[in-house]
C-alpha cells in the first residue's frame, strides 16, 4: 500500500521529533527528518511530502515568544513553499511548540501567513505543566479527527505556554466556523475552565483548533506520546485498547493523504 510522505521538521531546540516520526510510521506513513536549514538551502522541498508535521519542543529556546523565531523563519524564507503546500490541500499538524509555530505564522486559524489572530500565552499557573488531561473531541471538518467526534481522549500536556487566547470576535468566529477541535474536559467529559483539568487556563477550554478546511490542525497536548499500550500512565488499569485513540489522529492523516 502507498505510504504517504511525512516531513518531520527539525530546528534548533525541537525535541519531540522522534516520537512524532514513530507515531506517523506506526500509522503507515514514510517519514523523513528534515532540518529547516535543508529547506532554506533548497536541499529539501516541501513539495516532496503530503504531510508536514511540526513537532513539540523548544524551537530556538522559546525566545521572545514560544515558536516565534521559527515562525519568523518559515514566513521569511519558505512562504511560497508553505502556501503552495497548503493550497494543494496537503496536511499540516503542529503539536505543542508546533501549534505555537502555526498560530505565529498565521496558518492557524485563517491560513494566512503573517496574520496572527490567535495566540498561546504563558499558562495561568505561571509555569510548566506536565500532566494527563481529558480532551473532548468536537465535531469539526478536521481530517485528523474523523470518526472521533464526541470521544474523550486521555493525553499528556507538557508546556509552559499553552493558554489559548484571542480577541472576542475571533473567538466567536472560530467557534461559529466549527474550528475548535479539542477542549479540555473534566471527569464528566464536559469542557472545563477549572485547573488542573484545564491545565493552561485556555479560553473556552480550547486545546486544539483547525483551519476552515480541516487540513491544518494544531493542538497543545501530545498525542504522539500515546500510540502504544505502555505509554499511558494507567495502562495497567485498562482493559482493551482505550489508550490508543491518540493513534487515530495519525491514522486519519495517513488515510487521507493516501487518497491524494
Amino acid at each position, binding site marked *: 500500500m502507498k505510504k504517504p510522505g511525512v516531513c518531520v521538521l527539525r530546528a534548533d531546540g525541537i*525535541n519531540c521529533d522522534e516520537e512524532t516520526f514513530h507515531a506517523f510510521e506506526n500509522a503507515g506513513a514514510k517519514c523523513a527528518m528534515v532540518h529547516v536549514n535543508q529547506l532554506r538551502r533548497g536541499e529539501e522541498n516541501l513539495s516532496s511530502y503530503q504531510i508536514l508535521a511540526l513537532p513539540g519542543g523548544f524551537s530556538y*529556546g522559546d525566545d521572545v515568544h514560544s515558536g516565534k*523565531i521559527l515562525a519568523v523563519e518559515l514566513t521569511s524564507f519558505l512562504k511560497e513553499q508553505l502556501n503552495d503546500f497548503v493550497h494543494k490541500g496537503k496536511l499540516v499538524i503542529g503539536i505543542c511548540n508546533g501549534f505555537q509555530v502555526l498560530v*505565529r505564522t498565521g496558518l492557524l486559524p485563517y491560513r494566512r501567513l503573517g496574520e496572527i489572530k490567535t495566540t498561546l500565552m504563558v499558562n495561568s*499557573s505561571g509555569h510548566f505543566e506536565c500532566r494527563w488531561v481529558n480532551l473532548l473531541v468536537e465535531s469539526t471538518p478536521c481530517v485528523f479527527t474523523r470518526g472521533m467526534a464526541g470521544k474523550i481522549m486521555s493525553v499528556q500536556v*507538557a508546556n509552559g505556554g499553552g493558554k489559548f487566547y484571542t480577541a472576542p470576535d475571533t473567538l466567536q468566529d472560530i467557534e461559529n466556523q466549527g474550528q475548535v477541535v479539542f477542549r479540555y474536559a473534566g471527569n464528566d467529559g464536559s469542557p472545563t475552565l477549572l485547573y488542573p483539568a484545564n491545565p493552561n487556563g485556555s479560553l473556552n477550554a480550547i486545546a486544539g483548533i483547525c483551519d476552515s478546511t480541516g487540513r491544518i490542525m494544531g493542538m497543545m497536548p501530545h498525542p504522539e506520546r500515546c*500510540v502504544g499500550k505502555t505509554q499511558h*500512565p494507567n495502562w495497567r*488499569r485498562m482493559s482493551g485498547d482505550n489508550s490508543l485513540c491518540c493513534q487515530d489522529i495519525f491514522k486519519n492523516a495517513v488515510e487521507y493523504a493516501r487518497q491524494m
Partner: protein
Amino acid sequence: MIQEARVMVRDGIPDSKGDEVLYEIHHALGISSVEKVRTAKVFRFEGIDEDAARFLAERLLTEEIFQSFRVNSTIINDAAFVIEVAYRPGVMNPEADSLMKSASDLGVDGLIAADSAWQYGFYGKNVTEADIERIVNSLLVNATVEYVVKESPETLIIQGSPGRTEIVPIRSMNDQQLIELSQDKLFLNLEEMRVIQNYFNSLDRDPTDCEIEIIAQTWSEHCGHKTFKARLIVDGKEKKPLLKRLRDATEESKNPLVLSAFVDNSGVMDFYDGMAICGKVETHNSPSAIEPYGGAMTGSGGVFRDIAGTGLGAKVIASTDMFCFAPPDLPAAEIPPGCLHPHYLLRRAIAGIRDYGNRMGIPTNNGSLHFHRDYRAKPTVIAGAYGILPAAACQKGQPQPGDRVMAMGGRTGRDGIHGATFSSGEMTDRTIDVNASAVQIGHPIEEKRMFDAILTARDEGLIRAITDCGAGGFASAVGEMGAETGARIALDLAPLKYPGLSPWEILLSESQERMVLAVAPEHVERLLEICRDYNVEVTVLGEFTGDGHFSATYDGRKVMDLDMNFLHDGLPQRVLSAAWKRPPLTELKIKAPADWPGLYKKVLGHLNVCSKEPIVRMYDHGVQGTNALPPFAGVHVDGPNDAAILTPILGKPYGLVISHGLNPVLNQIDPYYGSIWAATEAVANAVACGANPDEMVLIDNFIWPFPDEEQLGALDMAIDACVDFVRATGMPFISGKDSLSSTYRGKDGTVIKIPPVLCVSAFGRIPDAAKTVSADFKAAGSHIVLLGYRDTKEMAGSVYCQIHDAPGSNLPRINPDNLMPVLKTLYRTVSSRQLLACHDLSEGGLAVALAEMCFGGDTGAVINIPEDEDAINFLFNETAGCFLAEVPTGLKPAAIFGGIPCRIIGVTSTDKSITVKQSGDELFTLELNELKTAWQQPMKEVFR
C-alpha cells in the same frame, strides 16, 4: 546608540509572570503591601536606528492580541516602584542569539548586538523601599549573575584585551608563600605545592600561570579524587584505598552485563538488539549553594554531556534529580552568613533542573527530596542521566597522533573559571563573593543542537574519541584525552564570547555546552559540514601528538609545556588516617499514642514523606514517548511509583528500569548500615516495579563533609558496605563520583557538617516492560501481603523518631545476603503477572506505603497488626528491602512467594478509608481524603 523596545501585556489581560511574582511576594516573603505586579520585557539593540527597532517591535517582539510596546520610552508608568533586572555583562543571555537571528531573517541589517531584560512594576499605596529591597534581593536578583539596571548601558559590546601570560616565581617561594599562592585559588596543600616547586626546579624554570592553573585543576579533589585514592590507615591498620576497593568488587562480580565501568564519562551496561545503556550521576553542590538556578542547570547540562561523551557518543534518554535541603520554613535567622535560604534554594534548583531537562527534551523521571536542618549551609544537589548507544560504539575512544583536537558547541567565556578547584574547597562565608565567576547560566538549546550533530557524526563514523568540557574546561578535556599521546593546542583559535580572555582563562574556562572531539584529519571536513547543518560551531584547536607533552600556544608564543606523566601521575598519594566514633545516642521510648490519626497524618506530612507531585508536574517526564511507568499513576494519577521504567527503543518492549536510594540520617547513626540501607532501597525500588535483580548495575555518589579523621572513618565504613552489597547481590558499581567538601566554616567558628549522603542509583533491563506493576491498588478484596525480613524494633533514624526529635541508635541492620532471595522471588511473581500492585517500604514505613497504594487506587484497606508486634513499630519501621504486594483473591500468597517471609496483613476494600486493627480491636479508622490532604499539603505550600 542603543535602541530600547519595551513590551508588556495589555491592560485587562492577566499577566501570568506578574501574578507568579506576586504570589511569591505574598507567600515566600510574607510582604502584603504589594497589591499587584506587572512585568515588561525590555529589548536592547545596538547598531540599528529607531525605525528598525520599531519594525522589530511590531514584527517580532510584540503580539498585539495581548501585548503593547513602546520604543525608547517607558512603558510601566503608574507603578509605585519599577525595577529592571538584567544579566550582568559577560553572563551570556541565551536569548541574544535568537534576537540576532530573527532580525537577520526579517531583513534588518546592521544589528551588532542585542540583549533583553525584565522590568517589574510594583503597585500598592503602602509599598516601602525596604519591601522592594527585600523583594529584589531575595526573589528577583541573584547578584552572582544578575543586577538591577539603574541606567541604560551605552553599549552592549564587551571590550577587553587579553592579559599577559604571567610567570609564577615558584622556585624562590618559601612555605608561607606557597600556602598563600594556593589559598582561595589553587586549593592544594603544602606538600603538593612543594612537589610542583620541585618539578620546576628540575626543569630549571618557573611555571606560567597556565601551567600552575592546569596542575591545580588536574590535582584538585574534584578531578583527582585524592581522598578516594589515598593510602588509608583505619583505626591504626592500613586498608586498600577506597576507590580500589569499589573497583575490585566490580571486577570480582564478573557481571556479564557490564560493558564499561569507571573508565569513561559514564558506565555502560548491555541492553537488547545490539544497543547499550549508559548511566552517570553527578553532584553540583558548590555552584548550587551560591546560585541554585544556574548551578542546577549546569549540573544537568554537565551530566547530559557525560552521557553524550560516552563511548563514541550516546543519546540522552533520562534525567534524574536528588536533593537535600534544609526545611523550607527554617527561620531566616538560622541561615549562616554567606548562605541562601532553603526556600529559595529549593525553588530555584528545581526551576534549573526543569528548564534544562525540559528544553533539551530529556524526560526527568526519577528523583527525591530530603530535608534536614544541617543542609542549611550547603545543600546537596545530585543530577543523573542515562543514555542509549550502539554496543559497538560504547568503548571509550583513543585519539591517535595526528588526530585533530576539535572544540564543539558553545563559545568560551570567563564563566565558570575555577569551578573544579572551587568545588573542592570547603564553603565559608567568603565563598559567595570570592567565587562568583564559578557559576553561569546554561543554554540548553546550544547543547541540544550539539547533541543532534554528535549523533549524526557518530553514525557516520567520524568520531575517534569524545569527551565533555566539564570541570577544568579544555585543560581537563584535552589533557585527559591526550594523556597517552600528548596534545598541542593554540588557545587563540578558540572562539570566544567576548575579547579579553587571558590564555590561562581560555584554558581553564568552564563555559558550558562545549565538547572536545578527536577526529582523524580525513573526517574534519565532513564534521564541519554536519555542524553547519545543525547551526553548531566547531573549531580545530590543535592536534594530538606523539610526544607525551601537553603544550599550548597563544599568538604563536608557547604558554604551556608540561609532561603528561607529571600532570597525571605526579600528584603524591596522600596518606590519611580514619577513625569513626559511634555517636552517643539515646533510644526513644516507643509508646502507643493517644492520637493515632494525628500521628499518621504527621508522618504522611513529614517533608521526607510528603507528595512531591507539584515538582514532578513541572518536569516534562513524558517527552520521547518512552515512559512505561511514570512517577505518578492511579485513578487520579497521584499515586507515587517506586522507579521509572522506560522503553527507550520506540516500538520495542524492552524496558530500562531506573531507581535510587539514600538516607543521610541513618549515615549519621551508623555509616555502614546507612549505606547498606541506601543500596537496598535503590534496588528494592526497582524490583518492586518488576526489575530483574540479576540484571542490574549501580552508581555511587558520596557527598560528604570534609574528610577529617572522623568523616573519613565514616566514608571507609560506607565503602565497606558498598563492597559487601556487591558481593552479596552480584550487582556491581559501574560509575561513581565523590564530593567531599560539604562542611561550612563560619567566621565565628561555626562548623556545620551535612549528614553524609551516599546516593545509590540503580538501573537494569527487562525484556518486556509490559510485565511490570505499579504501586496503586487495583481492586477491592485483594490480599495485602507484607514481604521481606525486618526486625521492627529497629526504629532508629525513622521519620517516627525524627518527629520525636530522637534519632536513636538501633537502626535497621539489613543483611544483604537475605536480600537476593526476596528480590528474586518478587521478580518471578511480578514478571509472571501474579501481582496486581507492589510498593517498597521506605521513609514512613508500612503505614506510608499502604496509604500511597490506597491513594493511587482510590481504594481503602483494612489491616490487622499481628499480636506479637508493637503497633507503632509495625507501622512505622523503615527497613528497606521489604514490600507490600497486592495479591488477587484467588491466589494463595504462601504458595506464590515460596520460602521468603510473607504475611497476609489485610485486605483492600471499597470503603475509602484505612482501618487498622490489632487483636480484634480497632486502633483507628481514617478517611483517605484526610490522609491524602496531609500528605499533599507541604509541597503545595512551597509550590503553587
